[in-house]
């Protein structure tokens, strides 16, 4: 499977690099509140993340579609309440079409039904806005670690069938 070969290359590349030369974690920020998300992006870049920002769900999906598979972000930080496509709708599509991308959802209110629905769909974590930068960095790093684990599991799983 071509997709598997890509995962393989990605996993091999990451495993062969020592921690200090590890490729920067890449995240995509999705939020319609531009001033907030642009500032957050600057702060994350100062912490050595590779950051892209888009301002609505459709743009987020178009962004993912236009990237080569190897360049897709490790994680997405996604606002729950947006006009047009809601955070949940974006989450559903990301989990369906780009499932390797881990999603961290930011929300201004703690509606339980939204949290439950997001868990069901496969959100990685749910954080409250305004978000503490160190907490967010911790969750992004964890999401990245989980993503690498899953990729490694896929690689070793497929060895037995090819």
């Amino acid at each position: 499977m071509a997709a598997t070969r890509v995962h393989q290359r990605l996993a091999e590349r990451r495993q062969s690099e020592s921690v200090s030369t590890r490729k920067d974690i890449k995240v995509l920020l999705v939020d319609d509140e531009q001033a907030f998300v642009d500032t957050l992006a600057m702060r994350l870049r100062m912490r050595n993340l590779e950051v892209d920002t888009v301002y609505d769900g459709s743009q987020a999906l178009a962004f993912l579609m236009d990237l080569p598979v190897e360049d897709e972000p490790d994680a997405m930080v996604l606002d729950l309440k947006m006009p047009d496509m809601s955070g949940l709708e974006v989450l559903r599509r990301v989990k369906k079409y780009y499932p390797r991308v881990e999603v961290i959802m930011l929300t201004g209110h703690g509606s339980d039904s939204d949290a439950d629905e997001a868990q069901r769909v496969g959100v990685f974590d749910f954080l409250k806005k305004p978000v503490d930068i160190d907490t967010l960095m911790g969750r992004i790093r964890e999401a990245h670690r989980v993503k690498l684990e899953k990729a490694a599991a896929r690689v070793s799983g497929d060895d037995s069938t090819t």
Partner: protein
Amino acid sequence: MEQNREKDLRVAQTTFVGRIIASFTHELRNYLAIIGESAGLQQDMISLGGKSKLDASEYLKFLKDIEAEVRRALKLITYLNRYAHRMDFETSDFSVNEAMEELAALVSRLAYLKKISLEREFGPDIPIIHTSPALIQLVVYCLFDQMLKSMSRNSTITLKTEAVSGAVAISLTPRGTPAEAAEEGMCSGTELEQVLQSIGGTMTRQSDGAATVQLPFTKPAGG
């Protein structure tokens, strides 16, 4: 029957207040989030900046931006505060344009989320009237809510006030495509016409989907 009407009205009123508070707190939280991130960024620049440290004028610009967000938040808080005080007395002297501007500011986020734009056309020289401003805001909100739910994205709702012979006319006119599946409005059980009648006002609906509330000029208390 009278009791049911009273109950429906009270339910509509509390739902309305709840909606305003929910929308307002969400918007305020967004402003605080921006302010928080800006402040955090300043800290980052100073402690992590290294080669990318900014000069004084750039820092000043950032701090001015924070001030601007604080002002936006305060403006919204002022609207909410005035809105809350409208419920202090059952009736009072008030400016229709002010009450409508307040309402528009408080519901603008709701329209934004549905990608419907709210335009204002406030007539000049509208006299102060004496009635229940909270009730007027409720009725206009009910009409607005109905329109939000029956129009599709990219539509426009125009809120207009004008003085017509002996009365103030407040009208809401929707323009755009109707939604595929209209949802029920918040006040579907409440009989807005009767609510208005109880304070001497009338409501008419036009063929283009617009609705107009008319309130006769009444002498301001003590006038």
